[in-house]
């Protein structure tokens, strides 16, 4: 159960950090979950539902984030082209 809660906490913190583009925080979270994987920890039944729900939330946020980043990159390229055009 402890591992399940740890994964849920990491997912919660990842969602918060991604919402505010806290890159340093996200790097730390990536390391934390990598340590969990290396420790050969296993998720067991009880917390799985919550993990899946949080993961789904992160997935939706990543999808929106990707969409918006693509738009921003296009805008930036357009602005850069505009600068060279002068």
């Amino acid at each position: 159960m402890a591992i399940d809660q740890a994964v849920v906490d990491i997912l919660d913190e990842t969602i918060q950090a991604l919402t505010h583009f806290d890159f340093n925080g996200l790097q730390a979270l990536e390391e934390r979950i990598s340590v969990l994987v290396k420790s050969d920890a296993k998720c067991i039944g009880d917390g799985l539902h919550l993990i899946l729900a949080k993961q789904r939330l992160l997935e939706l946020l990543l999808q929106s984030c990707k969409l918006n980043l693509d738009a921003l990159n296009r805008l930036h390229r357009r602005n850069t082209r505009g600068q060279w055009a002068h």
Partner: protein
Amino acid sequence: MGTLTSLLNIASEALLADQVALNATANNVANQNTPGYTDEVVNFQSGDAVSLSGNTQSSGVTATVVSQRDRVLEQRVQQQTQTVSQSGALQSALQQVENIFGLSSTSTSASSTTLGTDLNSFFSSLSALASSPSNTTQQAVLAAANTLAGDFNSAANQLSQVSSSLNQEVSGDVGQVNSLTSSIASLNGQIASVSPNGDAGTLEDQRQEDLDQLSQLVGLDQITTSQNGISLTTSSGAVLVSGNQSFAMGTTQVGGNTDVLAGDPPSDVTSNLAGGDLGGTLQARDQYLPAYSNALDSLAYAIGTQVNQQNEQGIDGSGNAGQAIFTLPSSATGAAASIQVSATSPGAIASASSGEGSSGNTNATALANLSNANMVGSQTATGFLASFLAQVGSDTSGVTTNNTAQQAALTQLTTQRDSLSGVSLDQEASNLTQYQRSYQAASQVFTIVDSLMASAINLGVETTVT
């Protein structure tokens, strides 16, 4: 070399330009907490060089103030606002439905709800009657039937009240939409006369603020028009603002619901409206609530009909053929709201079958067995109720998750808009890199969790984000 007069003119223009820059800075500081205010920056531009008597001289410098806004980004924020408002309104309505049935985010079990408990009690009372037919157990069946019918009436009435409050919300939203579209049309007119070819500063900020508020109410399509104007239509194409003219939305009553009229000429656009509070409210009222009401009606009608049919096959306490226990409408529509217990005396519960005397229990056993019969389609009554309540819980949970994700995405977009409007292209590139790396790091966490679960419990299927 210029003349002394021209030098003085140049110096004077430079001072004026500096004054414009100072004013812009003061404006930015004064409005840093003003909602919708966009930072102004000053563009300095050298005047054309003039050649005079073989000498070239500058004609000074002019300053123009422009707001740092990016219409594409603003529109993305508006679209996201519409999505968040829609899912927020839907979530609010579904949570009210959850409350009606006593469900919560952590408990969607039918047995924990009043309706579930009382349905079980009704079937338990029939089992007790089958075990020991008597006036007392017949009285218990009657009491349980009354409680169950009351639960159906209460749930149906509360669903109806939610629907009524959603109708009121539709009317309120339409009123606010009209006020905002009128203001935007007026601002369009002012902007066209003040600044038809350039940034209109505060006027555009006011219009943007109105657009932000409008986005919370209804899904919009925005078209930039001549003279720095914008036209607005609903997401289905009904015009709301064109130039300095606004086209008010209206409401009409259709089948007990408040429908929305929009466009020129006005037509019923209810089924095509999406986005904003109005979109979410209509989605809850027209898609989710009718489905829930229908399910509740089906359950009430199935229980009432089949208990009645079985009771009519038995012999009551007076030795007469049994009568219907429940009063029902002729079809399932409205059954939950109107189901009543028609029997007034315990003896009306027909325990015995024909030929075994009024003390028999054969028909009571058949009544009790209804608890295991497929009463609603291929499901038992308790099974159907459990599925229905699980569906309500699942719908609410899904909408809640979606709303949380959309709100986070809106926060992201607002951050991006604020950091990408009014900074240098180099800073933009740096910000974008930071966003991209954040996205990649979060994707990595997602993937690791995915593999952690897949390897730990052998899910077999990995979800991925591309």
